[in-house]
């Protein structure tokens, strides 16, 4: 591919071009409705384009991008599964519904939220859910405020520490800090699991809770989970389940049954809503009975056959965003659950785990590994002996691009040197996995034969490796008209 920059829409602007049209003003035009002091000096300096210009521009941009509809996207911990098209069509049916429409005008939407909440309770083993948080990190934040409010309400106000394993996603400590907690980090056991002695040592009367991902960020299920939640509970703390890896266990085991008190689910991962290049997501939070009084306002509650928005919640943490959450994302996830049913969800998880183990098994002789165990929905590989040839994880990732694949998550988790985290998802066929395995083996061979070539990859993309240092030293974050 010939490398080239793509013109910005500003550079395509021609004076007088227009793509918009509006009906003629059908009321008598009045002058001076705005006092001069409040009126802007000039129109905003936006580009002037025709409709065809706009269409060609964005289609052109799309051709310089890659989504899961293009092909395999094994980005670990991101659960890039196929996004069903029926979900898109029904997800937008409520586009015209105003969030402040009267109570008797929104029944169907509230019922939909109720039904989704109840389904999520069943899949996770919790007693209630709020759908208000807009993303995973937002869910973490919301769940942590529940924990603080719970302790405070009992008069146990000195509990201001959250324990976080060093293998955790960065959002965990960041969310805890935003919720006003101090963070106590514990080192993980070599397999990425919780070091029970370290956890016991970290417990104390100041501990409000413990955040954990299980399967952990190494893609392994922590066998000690019952003891872990017991240790935290014995010390008076609550257990927070980070649902980032929930896609591994639906229908098999439930966080509520593991002893967790609160969790968030990423609907944009496990329940297959499209990620849109970075969002919108949706991060519903589930909890046990003891935490229900503290859930955000309003809460959708069941009243006979229907749902009702409950605003009378004196102990609630309040609101975490306007209105009720990312509703059209919530609707898509509900369609997904309706389509699959309980059996289908279990089938999805089992096949996600099978696909990850298939890749792991067929590549572990070629690449380095952290642990030779059955993994869950994702597996970790490392360059292994390829490092002797000067080839690193980033080189392997860039080479994969030339083979037509989106690379896995790289350099995470931090506790594995040069990690590549591969999450294939259930929606990939055996041929796709086989082709990926073959590509990975060819890359390993290339790394030994011609490491220099590897350093120059990718060669098939519209642009080469960016100078990120220059970008950060002298930030250019908007277009300047010439």
């Amino acid at each position: 591919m010939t490398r080239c920059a793509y013109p910005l829409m500003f550079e395509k602007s021609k004076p007088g071009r227009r793509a918009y049209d509006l009906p003629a003003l059908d009321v008598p035009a009045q002058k001076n409705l705005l006092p001069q002091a409040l009126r802007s000096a000039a129109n905003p300096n936006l580009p002037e384009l025709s409709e065809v210009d706009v269409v060609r521009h964005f289609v052109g941009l799309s051709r310089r991008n890659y989504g899961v509809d293009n092909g395999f996207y094994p980005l670990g911990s991101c659960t890039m599964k196929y996004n069903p098209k029926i979900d898109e069509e029904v997800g937008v049916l409520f586009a015209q519904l105003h969030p402040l429409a009267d109570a008797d005008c929104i029944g169907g939407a509230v019922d939909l939220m109720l039904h989704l909440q109840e389904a999520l309770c069943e899949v996770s083993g919790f007693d209630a859910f709020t759908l208000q948080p807009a993303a995973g990190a937002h869910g973490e934040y919301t769940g942590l405020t529940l924990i603080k409010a719970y302790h405070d309400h009992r008069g146990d106000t000195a509990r201001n520490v959250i324990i976080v394993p060093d293998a955790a996603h960065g959002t965990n400590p960041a969310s805890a800090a935003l919720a006003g907690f101090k963070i106590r980090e514990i080192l993980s056991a070599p397999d990425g699991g919780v070091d029970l002695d370290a956890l016991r040592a970290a417990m104390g009367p100041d501990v409000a809770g413990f955040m954990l991902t299980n399967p952990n960020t190494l893609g392994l299920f922590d066998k000690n989970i019952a003891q872990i939640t017991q240790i935290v509970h014995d010390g008076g703390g609550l257990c927070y389940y980070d649902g980032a890896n929930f896609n591994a266990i639906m229908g098999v085991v439930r966080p509520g049954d593991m002893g967790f008190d609160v969790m968030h689910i990423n609907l944009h991962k496990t329940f297959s809503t499209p990620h849109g290049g970075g969002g919108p997501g949706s991060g519903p939070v589930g909890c046990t009975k003891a935490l229900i009084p503290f859930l955000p306002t309003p809460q959708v509650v069941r009243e006979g056959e229907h749902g009702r928005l409950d605003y009378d919640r004196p102990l609630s943490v309040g609101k975490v965003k306007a209105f009720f959450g990312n509703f059209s994302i919530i609707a898509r996830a509900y369609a997904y659950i309706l389509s699959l049913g309980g059996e289908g969800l279990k089938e999805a998880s089992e096949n996600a785990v099978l696909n990850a183990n298939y890749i792991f098994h067929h590549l572990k002789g070629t690449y380095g590994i952290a642990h030779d165990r059955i993994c869950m929905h994702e597996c970790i590989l490392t360059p292994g002996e390829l490092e002797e040839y000067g080839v690193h994880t980033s080189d392997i990732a860039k080479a994969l691009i030339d083979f037509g694949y989106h690379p896995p998550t790289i350099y995470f988790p931090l506790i594995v040197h040069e990690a590549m985290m591969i999450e294939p998802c259930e929606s990939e066929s055996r041929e796709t996995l086989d082709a990926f395995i073959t590509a990975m083996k060819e890359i390993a061979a290339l790394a030994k034969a011609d490491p220099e070539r590897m350093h120059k990859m990718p060669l098939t993309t519209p642009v080469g490796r960016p100078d990120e240092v220059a970008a950060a030293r002298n930030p250019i974050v908007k277009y300047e008209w010439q």
Partner: protein
Amino acid sequence: MKSYVPNTVHERQEMLQSIGLKTMDDLYADVPQTMKLSAPLQLPAGKSEQEVRRIFQSLLKNTCVSMPIFRGAGAYNHYIPSVVPQLASRNELYTAYTPYQTEMSQGMLQAIFEYQSLICELTGMDAANASVYDGAHACSETMVAMKFAKRKDKVLYSAALHPDYIATLKTYARFLRIELVEVPLLGDGRTDIGQIAALGADAAGMLAASPNFYGVLEDMAGLSEAVHGFGGLFGAVVNPLSLGAVKRPSEYGADFALGDAQPLGMPLNFGGPYLGFVTTHTKLVRNLSGRIVGQTTDDEGNRVYCLTLSAREQHIRREKASSNICSNQCLCVLMSSIYMATMGPAGMAEVAEQNLQKAHYLAQAIAALPNAKLRYADTPFFNEFVVDTGKNAAAVNEGLKQRGIMGGLPLSRFDATDTKGMLWCATEMNTREEMDAAVAALKEVLA
């Protein structure tokens, strides 16, 4: 039942065998047996596409989505050009993850860079982040940014911010132990600038909206001056659609311009997803939260875009980060970009002007009714205004609904003591005919 697993049962069995396992259950050997579910999930059996569609249609029937809307209050009914949903659903963009792999994500990275540029042109500011969840979240993130930038734990806000924004601010402030101080309103619906100097001692800054929740255009220049007077940062919460007519935040020295860009191409969607935007000037760019796209060059000197200034963010700073945001509202960024590109400078000016004209036409017609009056008759407004009638607003609202009209929002919805006020809104979507019918209906209800 629908399944998105392509492999047949036979293929799955072969795959299991190839890795030395017999059954799916063998994959879960690490899960303690006693903890495993002993029965299938108690969920209805999976459904076909047609059945799913029917369930959604029957839910939709139990909503009112076909009445003319005269309600805003943080969620606005505007026209969305056809190109917006069509282009935003391009699979390559729609089904992509966050653009971590620069070379494979130039399309989305450039789209975000263009969005940052467009929203900066609209607000007059120098830098924008790649979005936060919504307007309420934009307020919270800006409050925290002010705290970090000024190293002070007190922030002021105008009593005329959207009630949901205030409620969200209070949640974030409570847990982060920020002292939030409300600046009250004057009788004309505007924030009492006179109180700011006294309330602002030791504060990091202040957030105020224009148009504010009651539709009133504030004296933002006066507010900005008063906030700078106590050494604080001024966060201007604005409706971006109004900026085709109303003064831009840069014109009155705002330090942050923020809000919800839902009016720029996003449907009502029962409250989300919307688009929180935060912009600032160059000096404070590192106080923005979340992702930012920057321009640089590749190894051959081509212009490229990449995520930049990442060392502020949670995945690197962990508990020292000033925000925990990771996923944002990127697809909404794309939609607003397509909207702004389609409207251009003239379109943004014209749509703002039509909102202004129609809202004033409607306000004047309502005010001419015998027992209705504008609460803030002498204060300029954009596309929303408060009407007081002699009757209970909830009852008036019911009467209008019976006549097929979704009237202004009864303010009792947010303040139980405000039983008479209704917050009306008119946009380019409301025809004269529709407005005349609404006024006639209101006349009947009030009679």
